[in-house]
């Protein structure tokens, strides 16, 4: 299965991945509108960590043996037919068990509006996730690794 991987050597900490992720998961999917007009503002599904010259984006790994899927108390966290781990935000009650068990810290709390776990959905419906598409330095790649 194709996953998003990060080459931390080339992550320049610009955080454009976050900007485009947020836009993709906004209601309008229009960048300026998503930031300036939509409230609550959509959440970026990945976080860039930075310290000194080191930085990297941390999207969900869509683990083979996903602890969040195993631990989810409602069944909202599930694996789709592609193998992607998705959170059905309608079924999520915001208990944050997934946050407790994800060793990557890749699940976030969405609390503006209805509480629900918020995570990378590999940009469902897009050919390539937008974070990868817009990474200016190709630090994020979308590929199959064995």
């Amino acid at each position, binding site marked *: 299965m194709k996953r998003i991987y990060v080459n931390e050597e080339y992550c320049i900490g610009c955080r454009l991945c976050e900007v485009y992720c947020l836009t993709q998961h906004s209601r309008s999917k229009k960048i*300026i509108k998503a930031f300036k007009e939509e409230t609550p503002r959509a959440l970026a599904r990945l976080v860039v960590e930075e310290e000194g010259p080191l930085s990297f984006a941390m999207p969900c790994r869509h683990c083979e043996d996903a602890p969040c899927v195993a631990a989810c108390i409602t069944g909202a966290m599930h694996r789709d037919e592609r193998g992607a781990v998705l959170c059905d935000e309608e079924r999520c009650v915001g208990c944050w068990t997934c946050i407790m068990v994800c060793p990557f810290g890749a699940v976030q709390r969405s609390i503006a509006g209805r509480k629900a776990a918020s995570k990378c959905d590999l940009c469902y419906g897009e050919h390539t996730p937008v974070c990868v598409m817009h990474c200016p330095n190709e630090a994020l790649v979308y590929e199959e690794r064995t």
Partner: protein
Amino acid sequence: MSLNLLASEFQVVRDDTRCIACQVCVRQCANDVHAYDAESDVVYSDETRCVGCHRCATLCPTRALTIRLALHEFRPNANWTPAALYNLYKQSQTGGVLLSGMGCDQPYPVYFDHLLLNASQVTNPSIDPLREPMELRTVIGRRPGRVEVTQGPEGLRLETRLGPHLVLETPILFSAMSYGSISYNACLSLARAAKECGILYNTGEGGLHPTLYEYGPWTIAQVASGRFGVHPEYLRTAAALEIKIGQGAKPGIGGHLPGEKVTADVSRTRMIPEGTDALSPAPHHDIYSIEDLRQLIYALKEATNYEKPVGVKVAAVHHIAPIASGIARAGADYIAIDGLRGGTGAAPTVIRNHVGIPIELAIAAVDQRLREEGIRHQVSLIAGGSIRSSADVVKAIALGADAVYIATAALVAMGCHLCQKCYTGKCNWGIATQDPYLTKRLNPNIGVRRLANLIRAWSLEIKEMLGGMGLNAIESLRGNRDHLRGVGLNEVELNALGIQAAGAA
């Protein structure tokens, strides 16, 4: 601190209807032009530090930024130009030599832009490079004046031993840029691109990083006045050696890599203490004559068992023709001539802008002189110093070069925006810097791809131009000035270039 008399050179125009305060510009500017104010959720810009590198504008996801010249208008004065005044303000403030990066930016004539190429019409057919073979392969090195063959049982046998040669798939090389002046990722990109394109790159005076040894067959190792990074393994690894006498951007003076750029890795590669300024002397202290140069050439040949071509790089200056003749007679396998507009990581602005001669004139003079002396075949000529396009390549070769050196164009392919601030070590494009936060910005995979694209594109264009002239090999173009005509040039210039005026014939 007293008043800074300099007004900012640039203006950052931020379209507030587009700015989403994502702070990409804040993070990307190593000069701290942009700052985010969390309280008001607004990004402000202080353009006094802006160098006009466009990093922010290029990455801005909403295209909210435009960088413009800050057009502060002085009372019109054709003599005391704003540039002259700014230099005076800077100099009276710092008391130091003004530095610049990249090549001369003054409005001297660019002769390439006054040369036009020929094309076949009716009387001789042009060649379609997509349908017929077209040879761009170029051999650099000494050619024998005559060859001896003997008739053996299996046919003719070549008796003359041919000298060591470099074979280029296209008549372009990446010219010298040292590790230290540019980042490791930039060096790696050049090395990998050279390999991919079947050409060579040049270490400059930066030594050779151990991880780049594998690109040895595509490497020209430079030996300059500081002898930085020179050791037997270095010489043995490279495909050719180059004695650097001078550089177009700063003829007659040495080099100066500030201590801040001499990181642990650079210090190991150059074999100098970490954090110390790397000072290359103006002259080689063992070369005060052509005879001395000959000794160094042969010392290097000796050291490498006469298996590698040894070239000499000089800046294009007055009397370049007899200088080149002397170099050829000293035993060099190629002469690299670097013109007035050649780039640098750092040079005194006054030197960069006022010393040397344009490469077009130098090549024409040298080619003419070597032909007249009957020694043109003994040495190859590589022309450098602002080759901006495939047309410049073709014109340089028609003027007499065997191949060209490109560096600025290669840097631009990797992202350089010619802000001329290489010497600050804060290159926002991750090229002319050793700051680990900035060097990451040049992903060598992208660098290689872009460089290889450039070489491929230029090669295709060169083939088109050659075909148009009815030539099917780049060799046939070398020194073939009949394919050039001058426009807007006076008699003296036409003579110096050895060409006719357009329309005259």
